[in-house]
């Protein structure tokens, strides 16, 4: 089933970022970010300057989609958390409704701490996401309604 649209206002965006920042501190993580299940990045906090978050978001979504597919084949709805531990860097992913909470951490933290802190904010994030998705659209105008053929053609010159 395709999902309905989400409208995220600027203030909600900053609220989400504040929650991510707190989680990052509490879990001593390098990076914390939220993406949707289609692989689009929504918000990120932490050491993202040298991190290809676009690719990471896409691969994380692919990863969750693949393990979700496996879950269904064995009669599970989905696997709500995924962890990948490397020699120095590790990743923990929690599925929160339509969104994925991704925590990248190194030896300064532990999987146990990240799992605990992620679980603690999951409820808060789920409540925020519920509120966000309950907003319905009443469509009048958008900045894109006036896109002209020339605007589009100019991208390909």
């Amino acid at each position: 089933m395709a999902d309905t649209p989400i409208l995220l206002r600027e203030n909600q965006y900053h609220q989400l970022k504040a929650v991510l920042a707190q989680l990052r501190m509490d879990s001593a993580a390098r990076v914390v970010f939220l993406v949707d299940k289609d692989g689009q990045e929504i918000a990120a906090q932490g050491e993202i300057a040298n991190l290809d978050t676009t690719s990471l978001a896409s691969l994380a979504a692919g990863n969750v989609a693949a393990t979700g597919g496996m879950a269904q084949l064995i009669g599970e709805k989905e696997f709500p958390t995924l962890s990948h531990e490397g020699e120095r860097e590790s990743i923990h992913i929690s599925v929160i409704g339509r969104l994925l909470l991704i925590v990248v951490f190194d030896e300064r933290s532990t999987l146990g701490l990240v799992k605990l802190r992620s679980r603690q904010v999951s409820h808060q994030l789920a409540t925020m996401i519920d509120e966000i998705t309950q907003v319905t659209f009443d469509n009048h105008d958008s900045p894109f309604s006036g896109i002209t053929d020339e605007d589009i053609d100019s991208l390909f010159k």
Partner: protein
Amino acid sequence: MKTSTVFSNKSAEEVKSLMTFINYASREINCKIVYYGPGLCGKTTNLQHIFEATAPQARGKLISLATETDRTLFFDFMPLELGTVRGFKTRFHLYTVPGQVFYDASRKLILKGVDGVVFVADSQEERMDANVESLYNLEENLQAQGYDLMKLPYVLQLNKRDLPNIVPVADLKAELQRKEEPVVEAVASSGAGVFDTLKAVAKQVLTELRKS
């Protein structure tokens, strides 16, 4: 119908439901384009050409989840920035699916959240059945995700036009064209038709923004 996420400081009444993912906070439009088609038709080659022919600052990494023999295992992915429309950076996320029949579960997953599809057909006579099967599979998998090919931005690319044993364009169109979609002849290995294809699908996706 599909997921759209819209960041806005406007009231809900002022913002439209949009097909693509639009981030008002960073002023970006993100669209997902999927290259579909039978095994070895040239989907990855399309992406490789775009990657090689694009300035490094306009594109991200080309990620290929492939087997040791370079067959696509899960997907290829490349973000591509085309430029600015109405003050918004337009970024296209290009994906390919694995073409081999037995990877169907993966193909279904990659179509989630798609904004536009390119069907890459292999013009060789002996691949005609594979084209038909793959196109049928595309329609079926789109339906499973809640989409209708007839309503989706879509381009038919006839690839490998440089090979000797190819089916005439008219016959390919008769067999594979589903609606009034643009048909582009291509030789992805040399790059011919690759950007025309991308442009044709991107244009439809952006035109959807205006309509939505």
